[in-house]
């Protein structure tokens, strides 16, 4: 199943939850914000949200800035 | 809500100022209220010429060499207040008159033909006889003949001010008379004007009602003029902070002989008035300063360019007095009896431009 994450195409298995995808990317779910198809996903829904074919995902986090 | 310290505190602050304070205040770029207190102090008297120079320089920078001319139009001498200092006090036996809308318009047209473009509608405080309806109707009649219409009437509500603004009134003059609560209570014996706080909040209501300009002032001769000056400065600063879009003017009418024969409670000399004007100009470079015809021609001529920016001329303080100069029932007697042309000539002679029109009612949306 294909989704887009941060502009890149990623191959995932069906029934992948958002939290497991984030962990697969070697990211810490506690410090990452997720936007799926333009909507922000609440952190407490990371482990219940199932990803679908064609989802456009944005993973964002804090970086240094002025 | 605007809060003011007691007069004792204001006086203490003024008296605590040193000569060093005064010198610093004269050269400061931004003045604090403590600087104003210093300039109002007795010790500042010997610096009067330096204050005059600084005041003149600031006035020139902000206002150029112009003086705005306006005329008061008394529309009613009925009043429900009893104020010991005023010719219109309810217990004074004078001829009372309220002009009909046609009569008021006729008076206004006399002023219009004389060349006035700024008019101040004045009345005693008798809402049942003269209220917002009257003022609204009169403003609608006059708005196309005058560049601006100001009112000096009873305190109104924000909604009422907004209504009058829509009708063409652009500014409101409302003087606290005295910021000293004790003296305020002493001289206001009966009527709605006894409510010190309601009156104190009126400038804010007028500003909230979209008035372009609000004029505050104190009647000199009631309480200590120095503390009144400091109170006025505090009021100006508060209004600037909370209603930054509103222009401000300040006026200090000095008590003159009136029908009730009230003797001023304190003496205020011309020199004192000058110090007050210079101090406020230095403290607030942008405030319009009005010098009324209560003062004599000699003094008004001398003060041109030193701080004041608005002069009334050819004034009559009795309703109907422009049509009929023998009309009785004036609020106070005039010190400067010159006509508008004479005042303008004197202004020009001193090298200033008498501005008969500043602003345009056409800018005011219907």
């Amino acid at each position, binding site marked *: 199943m294909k989704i887009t*994450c*941060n*502009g*890149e195409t990623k191959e995932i298995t069906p029934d992948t939850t958002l939290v497991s995808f984030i962990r697969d*990317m*070697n*990211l*810490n779910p506690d*410090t*990452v*914000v997720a*936007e799926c198809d333009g909507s*922000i*996903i*609440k*952190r407490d829904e990371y482990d219940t949200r199932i990803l679908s074919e064609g989802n456009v995902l*944005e*993973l*964002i*986090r*804090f*970086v*240094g*800035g*002025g | 809500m605007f809060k003011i310290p007691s007069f004792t505190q204001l006086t203490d602050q003024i008296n605590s100022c040193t000569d060093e304070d005064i*010198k*610093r205040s*004269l*050269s*400061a*770029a*931004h003045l604090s209220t403590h600087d104003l207190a210093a300039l109002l102090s007795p010790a500042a008297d010997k*610096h*009067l*010429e*330096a204050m*005059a*120079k600084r005041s*003149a320089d600031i006035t020139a920078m902000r206002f150029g060499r112009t003086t705005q001319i306006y005329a008061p139009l008394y529309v009613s001498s009925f009043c429900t207040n009893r104020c010991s200092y005023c010719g219109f006090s309810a217990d004074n036996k004078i001829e009372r008159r309220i002009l009909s809308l046609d009569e008021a318009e006729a008076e206004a047209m006399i002023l219009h033909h004389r060349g006035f473009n700024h008019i101040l509608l004045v009345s005693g405080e008798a809402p049942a006889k003269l209220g917002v309806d009257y003022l609204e109707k009169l403003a609608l009649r006059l708005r196309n003949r005058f560049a601006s219409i100001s009112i000096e009437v009873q305190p109104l509500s924000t909604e009422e001010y907004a209504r009058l603004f829509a009708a063409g009134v652009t500014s409101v003059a409302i003087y606290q008379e005295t910021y000293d609560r004790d003296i305020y209570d002493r001289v206001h014996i009966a009527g709605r004007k006894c409510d010190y706080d309601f009156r104190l909040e009126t400038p804010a209501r007028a500003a909230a009602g979209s008035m372009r300009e609000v004029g505050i002032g104190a009647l000199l001769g009631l309480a200590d003029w120095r503390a009144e000056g400091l109170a006025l400065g505090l009021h100006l600063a508060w209004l*600037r*902070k*909370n209603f*930054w879009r509103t222009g401000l003017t300040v006026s200090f009418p000095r008590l003159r002989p009136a029908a009730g024969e009230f003797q001023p409670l304190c003496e205020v*000399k*011309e*020199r004192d008035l*000058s110090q007050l004007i210079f101090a406020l100009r230095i403290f607030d470079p942008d405030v319009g300063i009005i010098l009324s015809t209560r003062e004599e021609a*000699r*003094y008004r*001529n*001398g*003060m041109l360019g*030193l701080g004041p920016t608005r002069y009334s001329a050819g004034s009559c303080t009795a309703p109907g007095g422009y049509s009929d100069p023998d009309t009785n029932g004036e609020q106070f007697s005039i010190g400067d009896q010159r006509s508008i042309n004479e005042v303008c000539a004197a202004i020009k002679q001193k090298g200033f431009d008498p501005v008969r029109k500043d602003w345009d009612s056409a800018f005011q949306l219907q």
Partner: protein
Amino acid sequence: MLKIADRTFRSRLFLGTGKFDSAETLKKAIEASGSEMITVALRRVDLNDPADDIMNVLDRTKYLFLPNTSGARDAKEAARLARLARAAGSGDWLKLEVTPDPRTLLPDPIETLKATEELVKDGFIVLPYINADPVLALRLQDAGAAAVMPLGAPIGTNLGMITRFQVEIIIDQARVPVVVDAGLGAPSDAALAMEIGADAVLVNTAISIAGDPVKMAAAFAQAVEAGRAAYEAGLGKKSSEASASSPLTGLDFIKD
């Protein structure tokens, strides 16, 4: 003590966290500065470098996070970033930065006002970054901004307080705290901002690109304290002339 919205701060130096050579230097600089509020930005995670996470060195318990909306070119983008920041758990505080011109990074006044109005309504505590425009500062305060952040000079220029005169007007008229942000290149610039009455300053570039950022952070902290102390002590005014009288303003017309 400085109060912004419902928080009090002992330190009047806020720190930006961008442009540091390493997370370790950043961490030490924050400690040296004594700052209680730091700004962070929001960016896409670099999927090729997932471990590069600034949150490894930043301690939420020690200072308040102020996410900025840097990168936003209009109010819509700023609002999106604001909501992402809130979802990231940074609370309601927001430094609103709308900079459509990537060359100068100067803030767009119109989009900033629009975004402030929208975000204040949505419960954000908005600190807008603006050019030192006094009327804009007033409009933003009317719209509910919790503070205003006028620039001393454009971001990264280190030119100091070139907007001094306008900032003084803003301070004079302000009903909320004024935080001078951007362009402060040296501790003396920060001291000057505080001397003229700013409530706080925000410094980033000058510290991050200094030879020794940790030492520079400490220097800025001292400068901010010195400037504030001077302001509270009441600086003596400079006097230009001490002339006593002038023939031009003879007051002989006064009778009594």
